[in-house]
Structures are given as structure tokens and as C-alpha cells.
């Protein structure tokens, strides 16, 4: 006894560093030998880190740099004109430190809704360097010189050496310039003092910090940091949120992987224990393996992500419209991605590591899987989390007087609490499978019972599926509720084969332009813009339609309006008159129209909205309009006609001629719709803009706003793909747990049908339970948030159930998983056939 004690005192009780080194060394060797068995987890982590690096780099670099508009200056102040206040400020700042003044005046680019700026800026000024770079030629050095951006050069067909009258002065184009921080910044650069009546004066300055207070009296001083902080949901924040969520999903999936791995190494672990390894050593074997997987995955992800960034950066600069440095990565996000990848793998392995130490050594040495631990986990903790999330989301939705504007922290916390709620409920849901299985055929019964018995594996997979589906369902429900509001209509403005032409108000002080013999737009000397007559406008619109070989529909605006409120939102959108020409353009026959209908609409559900009134003779602000006497019809008869276009800028709601006569409503042509037989190309749109510029018209083409169905379908697809991905990664792990059962079944004569059924039922049941849990969580979140959110219509906003998408998630995805499981289970997977590695 004494001898034993003496020897104990000589060395650390658990072997200290040499022991940890030896165990870690063995874990590393095992990883090198068995990396193929961990390929799934390794691939997951690698892809997640690579995607995070590439995605966050794109997200962070897509908007202009946060110091855009500051150059190298630490402070900036802007003024609407060169007022006395601006002059005083600039003088004081110049006295205290260094100032660079940039003056702008904005002009419209004829025929386009875009503008350009005439900018006076010292190209060699103390701060403006990063905002200016020379592509070709040289910077202007005198009043009769100008340098332009590529955009301006293209719009006005300019090149170096040409003369261009801008700002009332004929100037020689001496250079092509750009703003590296904003390639979309369209401007004409002149020397300081050449912008006589600026619409924006920006002072970039650097003064001692102590002087800022005296300068800031009555003036808003900005810093790059204050501009960045004004948007809490900046791309880095979103990237981090996505990263945390992604790593959580990976950790959940990896738990199953490491559990199976630990089981496969059970004999080795038993051997280690038999020669004196402590629980800590055993835990270290498994968790060190997890850490190694995390580190290797993170390094591979970093390499792949950075390589992807290098490959994508050149084309990304063009789409982001500003120059981006090679190393302009969000390094905090990158570092966090690496750290989180390692932590996720470590924590995913630490649970199986703890579990493996509880297996008796003799049991471990025998290599037989330990009997599954019975989990009598209550659903109560999960329900508590869900209730807390429900209450927090409700509080968030009710802030800001019912528009949810002031409850961002509660919203975030509520959404975060949903995750542990679902994770804690997963084992309870799995226990239901055992009850369902009692009357099922043998293969299905075995599969369902195994799901319930081996919840350590299946529980984490179920949690991961349910969280993926939860995100998807929240997006689906939020989009469905928002886009179902027919009064405040949201979605794309036009179809891709449509262009809207609006009357353009000529900008002040701009010369009339015309095409010269070379097709270039040039100003007509000494001729100012005048308002075009309706006939001239119609002729211009006709010319555009003819040029596009498209059909032109004149859109008549009535002196009437619709008003009403539904779900906290008011009517929005332009209404037009259902002229015979318009109806004919969309193939609507007179016989299809109810002769007593006042309004025709393509907005689904508008006819059922109560309280929608039609006013006439005034506009919605009660200003008297031209036409007949003012009045209102509180119960206009609305007929839904799906043939009318659905775009928000298209005539989706029109007043019938019957109502026009009945209420003596007058009308006038203000807009046109050009309808082509196929989508318009960018060149066609550009050509239309050029033509419109000479006819005082503006062209509106299809915007990038997605439709509700697009968002819902993509969200559904996202949820299904996440669920299927998790199933693909976890079903094999869950089934490998019972590989010995499978061998026994095969030995007793079970056919491949049994094997297929086992896998199919496992995949289908896991998929269905995950979908069910996710849908329940999604509805809890949305009901919680909407119940006190009057702006979005309260709970009634959920009345339009996206039935098809939910059915796809609830039944389509599990069915697909079962079918794929059935097909892939035709041969016994190698992982099942292989003996545990010793």
C-alpha cells in the first residue's frame, strides 16, 4: 500500500502532459487511418467554412466600403448648398485642421431615370484620393477641362478629346475617371470652383478630436464608424448569424457521426482503459479526434474559400460596382468561422466522449454495442423554451405601436430560443415512433423502434432537420402573410416582356437633346426643355413600341381612387381605366365582365375585402380633381380577372367604363404599357431609354423584387434541401448503429426488401418528424409575432395557408427521402459490413 502511494506521489495522478500527448498522438493517428470514415463531417465543416468565407466576403464587399464618401478623412459633413452655415463651418474647420471641399450638382441623364453629377474636386486634395482614380488621360487642370466616368461617357457618347457643354460651359474631355469605392458613381469631374450652384457640398476634414464638439453645433458630423453603426444588420452581422446557425446544424449532425465513430472504436477504448487510461484520457481520445476534424476541416475550408474568392473577385468587382482588394475579407468572420468550426466539432464530439466513458470496460472490450440508454426525457423543458419564444416574439411584434419596429432584441432572442426548444422536443417526438410502430410490418417496426431506442443519434439528426425546416417555414409563412395583403400589394413591378412609360418632368436647366447623324445624343444649342403635349408624348410612346416591335397600351388614369385598410395596411397602387383597348390587349372579352362591376382586378382576394371604398372627383388626399362631382362608393362591385397583369406598376386594378359613366369619372393618359411577345433584352431597354429621352418619357423595366410565390418556393426548396442533406448524412449513421441487427436479419433470411424498407422508413420517419417539428415551430413563431402586430394584420394574416408548400415539406420531402433511401439501400453499405477498427 505504501509502495503504491509513494509511486502515486511521484507522477501526476492522471499522467499530466505526457499522457495527454500520448492520447492526442493516438487520436491523430486514428484520424489519419480513418479519415474516410469521418469524411462526411470533414466535408460538412470544410464546405461550411469555405461557404462562409466566400459568402461573407461577397456580402461584406457587395455594398460600398464603409469609408466610401470619406476618402482618407476621419470626419465628413454635408450641406444642401453653399449656405452661410456651410461656409462658416468650412472656414472654422480649415482654421482647426485640414479640409477638402467637394461640390456636386445633380443632373438627369436624358431618357433615363438615372442621374449624374457635375463634381468639383481637387484630384490631389488631402483626403479625396481613394474616391478618385484615373483610367485614361489626365485630370482636369483648368475650367475648360472635364474628366468623366465611363457611365457618363457612354450616356453622352463622349471620349477624350471631344468637347462637351456641361454646367453651362464648353469643356474638353481630358480624362476617364472612376470612383474606386463606387463604380456606379456617374460624374463629370471639374476643377474646384466650377460648380456654381451646388446641390450638395461635402466637407472632408480632420481636426483634433477636442475640436469636434465646437464644430458640431448645428451640423451633423459623420465618421465611417457612425455610418457603419447606423445599420445594425450589416452584412457581417448577417454572415455571423448564418455562420452560427450553420455551425449549429453541423454540430447537431456531427454528434451522430462522432457517436458512431466512438462506438466503432469501443474496443480500442476498452483496451486503453484496460491498460490504465482514466475517463479523462478516454474523453480526450474522442474529443481530440473531434478537434482534429474541426481543425483539418477549417484549414481546408479556409484554403478552398480563399481560392474561390480569388477566382470570383474579378467578376464580382464588376457586379459590386467598386474595386475590392485581394485581402478585403471580413477577417473577423473568417477567424470566427475557423474557431466555430473547431468548437462545433469539439462540442459535437464531447457528448459521445462523455457517453463512452460510461460504458463498462468489459463491455467495451467485447466490442458489442452497449444497450441503448433509455431516455425518459420530458417534453416540458422544450415546451418552456417554445412558450418563452412565443411570448418574446409577441412582445417584439407589439412594439412600436403594433408595427414591431422597436423589438429587434426580443425578436432575435425569441428566434434563438426556438432552437433549444426544438432540440429538447426532438427526443419526445422520437418516442412517438415506438408507439406508432406497434402495428407496423416487421421492417418498419424495427426501423421505427430503432429510431426511438437510439435517440442519441437520431435525436441530433431530427433537431437539425427541424431547424432547417423551421427557417424555411418562417420565411414561407412571413412571405405568404405579407404578399397575401391585396391592398398593400407587393411583388415585381412588371413582367419581363413589359415596359412602363411614364411622363418625365424635364429637369431644370437642361438643354434639349437630340440625336445627331451618328446617333449620338447632343444638346440643342440655346434650347431649353419644354413640356411636351399629350400628342407628342403619345407619339414618343408609339415610337418606342414600334422600335421594340411591341404592342402599346395607353393607360388612362381616372380621377378616382380606392381606399381601405386590411391587416393594418392601406391600399397602395395606381388604378387605371378598363378601356376597350386595355381589355383587348390582355385578351379579356366584354362577355367576361360583369356588367355591374365597378372595378376589375388581378389581385387575388380583393373582391372579398370589406370596407374598400372608391372615391372619385378627388384624390386620396381629398384634393378636388378635374372631372365630375366628388363622391364615394363604399361598396364598389369588384370582379377578379386573372387575365389582367399582376405587376405592381402594371394595370392590375382598373375601373370599368360602367363605373366611369355611373360616377361621371373623367380620365387622362399619363402612362403607357409596352407589351412585347418575349422578354426585352438590356439592349432593347437601353434603346427604349434613348428614344424616351427625346420624348420626355421615362422607361420603367422589370425590377429585381421577387414575387411572393418566388420567395415561398425558394424557401420551401431551401427547407427541403437542408432536410434531405441532413438525412443523407445521418440515416447511414443511424442505421450503422444497428448493423449487427442487419447482419442477423440477413442471416435469418431477410431479403433486400427488408433492408430497403428499414432504410426507407428510417429516412421517411426522420424526415416527417423533422418537418412536423419545424412546421409547428414555424407556426408558433409566426403566431407569436403576428398576434400583437397590427401592421401586418395580426394572426388573421396567416389565414392564407401556403398549403401546397407545406404539403411538400411535410409529406413530399419525407416521401422523397424514403424513396431515395429505398433505392440506395439496395446494397449493404460498406460501413455496415466493416468490423469495428481496433
Amino acid at each position, binding site marked *: 500500500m505504501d509502495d503504491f502511494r509513494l509511486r502515486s506521489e511521484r507522477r501526476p495522478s492522471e499522467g499530466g502532459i505526457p499522457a495527454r500527448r500520448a492520447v492526442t498522438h493516438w487520436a491523430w493517428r486514428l484520424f489519419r487511418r480513418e479519415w474516410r470514415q469521418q469524411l462526411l463531417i470533414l466535408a460538412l465543416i470544410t464546405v461550411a467554412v469555405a461557404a462562409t468565407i466566400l459568402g461573407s466576403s461577397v456580402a461584406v464587399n457587395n455594398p460600398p466600403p464603409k469609408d466610401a464618401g470619406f476618402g482618407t478623412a476621419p470626419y465628413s459633413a454635408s450641406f444642401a448648398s453653399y449656405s452661410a452655415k456651410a461656409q462658416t463651418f468650412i472656414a472654422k474647420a480649415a482654421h482647426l485642421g485640414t479640409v477638402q471641399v467637394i461640390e456636386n450638382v445633380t443632373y438627369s441623364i436624358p431618357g433615363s431615370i438615372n442621374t449624374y453629377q457635375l463634381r468639383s474636386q481637387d484630384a490631389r486634395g488631402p483626403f479625396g484620393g481613394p474616391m478618385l482614380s484615373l483610367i485614361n488621360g489626365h485630370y482636369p487642370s483648368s475650367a475648360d477641362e472635364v474628366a468623366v466616368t465611363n457611365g457618363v461617357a457612354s450616356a453622352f457618347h463622349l471620349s477624350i478629346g471631344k468637347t462637351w457643354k456641361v454646367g453651362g460651359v464648353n469643356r474638353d474631355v481630358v480624362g476617364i475617371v472612376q470612383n474606386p469605392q463606387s463604380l456606379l458613381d456617374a460624374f463629370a469631374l471639374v476643377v474646384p470652383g466650377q460648380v456654381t450652384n451646388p446641390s450638395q457640398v461635402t466637407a472632408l476634414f480632420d481636426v483634433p478630436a477636442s475640436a469636434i464638439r465646437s464644430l458640431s453645433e448645428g451640423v451633423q458630423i459623420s465618421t465611417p464608424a457612425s455610418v457603419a453603426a447606423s445599420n445594425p444588420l450589416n452584412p457581417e452581422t448577417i454572415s455571423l448569424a448564418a455562420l452560427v446557425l450553420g455551425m449549429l446544424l453541423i454540430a447537431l449532425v456531427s454528434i451522430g457521426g462522432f457517436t458512431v465513430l466512438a462506438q466503432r472504436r469501443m474496443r480500442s477504448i476498452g483496451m*486503453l482503459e484496460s491498460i490504465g487510461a*482514466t475517463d479523462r484520457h478516454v474523453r480526450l481520445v474522442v474529443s481530440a479526434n473531434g478537434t482534429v476534424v474541426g481543425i483539418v476541416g477549417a484549414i481546408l475550408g479556409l484554403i478552398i474559400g480563399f481560392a474561390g474568392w480569388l477566382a470570383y473577385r474579378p467578376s464580382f468587382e464588376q457586379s459590386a460596382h467598386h474595386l475590392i482588394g485581394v485581402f478585403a475579407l471580413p477577417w473577423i468572420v473568417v477567424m470566427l468561422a475557423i474557431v466555430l468550426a473547431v468548437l462545433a466539432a469539439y462540442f459535437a464530439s464531447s457528448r459521445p466522449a462523455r457517453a463512452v466513458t460510461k460504458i463498462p470496460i468489459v463491455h467495451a472490450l467485447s466490442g458489442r454495442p452497449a444497450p441503448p440508454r433509455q431516455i425518459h426525457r420530458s417534453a416540458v423543458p422544450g415546451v418552456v423554451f417554445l412558450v418563452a419564444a412565443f411570448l418574446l416574439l409577441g412582445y417584439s411584434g407589439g412594439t412600436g405601436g403594433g408595427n414591431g419596429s422597436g423589438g429587434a432584441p426580443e425578436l432575435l432572442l425569441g428566434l434563438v430560443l426556438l432552437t433549444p426548444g426544438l432540440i429538447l422536443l426532438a427526443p419526445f417526438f422520437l418516442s412517438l415512433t415506438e408507439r406508432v410502430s406497434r402495428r407496423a410490418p416487421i421492417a418498419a417496426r424495427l426501423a421505427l423502434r430503432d429510431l426511438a431506442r437510439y435517440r442519441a443519434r437520431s435525436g441530433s439528426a431530427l433537431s437539425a432537420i427541424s431547424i432547417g425546416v423551421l427557417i424555411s417555414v418562417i420565411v414561407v409563412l412571413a412571405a405568404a402573410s405579407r404578399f397575401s395583403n391585396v391592398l398593400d400589394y407587393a411583388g415585381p413591378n412588371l413582367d419581363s416582356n413589359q415596359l412602363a412609360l411614364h411622363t418625365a418632368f424635364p429637369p431644370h436647366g437642361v438643354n434639349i437633346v437630340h440625336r445627331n447623324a451618328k446617333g449620338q445624343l447632343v444638346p440643342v444649342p440655346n434650347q431649353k426643355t419644354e413640356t411636351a403635349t399629350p400628342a407628342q408624348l403619345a407619339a414618343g410612346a408609339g415610337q418606342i413600341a414600334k422600335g421594340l416591335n411591341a404592342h402599346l397600351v395607353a393607360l388612362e388614369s381616372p380621377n378616382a381612387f380606392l381606399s381601405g385598410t386590411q391587416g393594418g395596411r392601406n391600399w397602395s397602387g395606381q388604378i387605371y381605366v378598363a378601356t376597350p383597348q386595355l381589355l383587348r390587349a390582355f385578351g379579356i372579352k366584354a362577355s367576361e365582365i360583369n356588367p355591374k362591376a365597378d372595378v376589375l382586378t388581378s389581385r387575388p382576394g380583393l373582391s372579398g375585402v370589406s370596407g374598400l371604398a372608391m372615391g372619385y372627383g378627388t384624390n386620396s388626399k381629398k384634393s378636388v380633381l378635374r372631372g365630375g362631382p366628388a363622391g364615394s362608393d363604399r361598396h364598389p362591385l369588384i370582379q377578379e380577372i386573372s387575365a389582367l397583369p399582376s405587376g405592381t406598376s402594371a394595370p392590375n386594378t382598373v375601373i370599368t367604363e360602367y363605373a366611369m359613366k355611373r360616377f361621371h369619372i373623367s380620365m387622362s393618359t399619363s402612362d403607357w404599357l409596352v407589351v412585347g411577345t418575349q422578354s426585352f433584352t438590356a439592349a432593347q431597354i437601353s434603346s427604349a431609354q434613348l428614344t424616351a429621352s427625346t420624348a420626355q418619357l421615362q422607361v420603367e423595366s422589370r425590377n429585381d423584387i421577387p414575387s411572393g410565390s418566388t420567395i415561398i418556393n425558394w424557401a420551401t426548396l431551401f427547407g427541403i434541401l437542408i432536410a434531405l442533406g441532413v438525412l443523407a448524412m445521418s440515416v447511414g449513421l443511424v442505421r450503422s448503429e444497428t448493423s449487427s441487427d442487419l447482419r442477423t436479419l440477413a442471416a435469418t433470411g431477410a431479403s433486400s426488401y427488408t433492408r430497403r424498407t428499414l432504410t426507407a422508413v428510417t429516412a421517411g420517419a426522420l424526415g416527417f418528424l423533422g418537418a412536423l417539428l419545424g412546421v409547428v415551430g414555424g407556426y408558433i413563431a409566426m403566431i407569436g409575432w403576428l398576434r400583437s402586430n397590427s401592421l401586418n394584420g395580426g394572426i388573421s394574416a396567416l389565414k392564407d395557408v401556403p398549403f401546397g408548400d407545406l404539403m411538400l415539406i411535410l409529406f413530399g420531402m419525407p416521401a422523397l427521402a424514403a424513396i431515395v433511401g429505398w433505392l440506395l439501400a439496395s446494397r449493404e453499405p460498406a460501413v455496415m459490413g466493416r468490423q469495428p477498427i481496433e
Partner: protein
Amino acid sequence: MSMLELRSVSKRYGQGANEVDAISDIDLAVERGSLVAIMGPSGSGKSTLLTIAGSLEEPTTGEVVIDGARVSGMSRNDKARLRRRSVGYVFQDFNLLAGLTAVENVSLPLELDGVSMKKARAQGMVALEGLGLADRAESFPDQLSGGERQRVAIARAVVGERSLLLADEPSGALDSVNGEAVMRMILSACHGGVAAVVVTHDAKLASWADRVVFLRDGRAVDETLPPPSPEELLNPDAPNPA
């Protein structure tokens, strides 16, 4: 003082109607330098006796004393430390760690006990040299023959200052030549002061032991001195260790 003492040790598995007595009321004492063989039919409790003696399993009743230390009062970590320092285990199927070379397998218990890698490796090499495996020190287990693997396992069981060697059918997976070689090594360890308990089916190998304990249905039914071994027969002057 005995190196190993089992006092009225019993082990019961299962509960209620499934209750089975694996071993009942076993008393056994093994002195330093002696070799005890355990024999008996399958299911007689031989391996259970060995796992309890090696602190891999807890007895249901009774007491196990190793090197004067009562095992039943020890924590899991203390038991692990006891195994690292005092008990060497040899299994029928070798139980070498696949990811480690022969010398790393041998030196592992020392490293787990806090001995520096360099010193542990040096001792591991000494143990391997003693068993004629110095040239295979850098081989992985799957590159070794069955006999070599078992020799590595014995080297691992005796490396350091360990004084109790427990072997469960150490020659079960070997041919007769290798089996005898293994027994010779265990006996050699005993001559060095190690107390050894060997579970075997093979009466011929059991004849190498100083004492043979017969188990049947979990009870020690007989305990006998073995008949003279071939070596003793060849050398009648050799003293009988019993």
C-alpha cells in the same frame, strides 16, 4: 504479503428471474513470483474472475486486494492508476491499439502515467528487446504475426514496475509453438518477481503453473499442484516451486 488477494468474491449479473451467479465466494491469493493457472469449462467464470482481479469489473460481494491496496474503495481514476502501475493484462486477441507502433503500444501505459515520451520509449524498447522484438518496434500491429502481437502484448503488460500479470487465454489465438513461447515468457516474468494469473483451457500449458485452480459453475472446485512439467522431468533436481 500476496500480490493479489480475492476474498469471498462473487459476481452476479442480471436482475430478478434473469439473475446469474458468474462466480461465487472465490478466495484466491497469488504471491509475487508465482504463476497460477485458472481452468474450467466455458461459462465457469474464469474470465469474470480475471476481469475482477484486474479491476476491470466490480465484484458484487467480496474484496479484491492488489499489492496491499483494496480495490473496492478506489475511485475510477485510482483504479486506472493501479492498472497503469501494478497490473498488466494480456488478452487472447492481443488488444493492441491499431494506430500505434509496437513500441508505442508498449510504452503507452508509461506515457499515460506521466513518464516522458523519451523515457517511456526507452523502457518500451528494453521490454521489446527482452522478448526478441527490437527489430519490429516500429511495425504497426497489422504488420505483425499473431505470435509477435502477443509478445508485444506481454511486453506492454510487464513494462515498467508492474508486478501483477493477468492473462486471459494468452495462447488461445496462437499455434502450439507460439503458445508455449508465450507461456515461457510469462514464466520468465514470474521468475523476475511478477505474480501471474493465467486463464487457459489447455492442460498442457496449465502444467507450467505453480498452482492450478479449477472452476465450475462459478465456484472453485479444486486447487492442485500441477504434475511435473517437461522441464522438471528433464531436470529432476530442479526445486518444485510449490
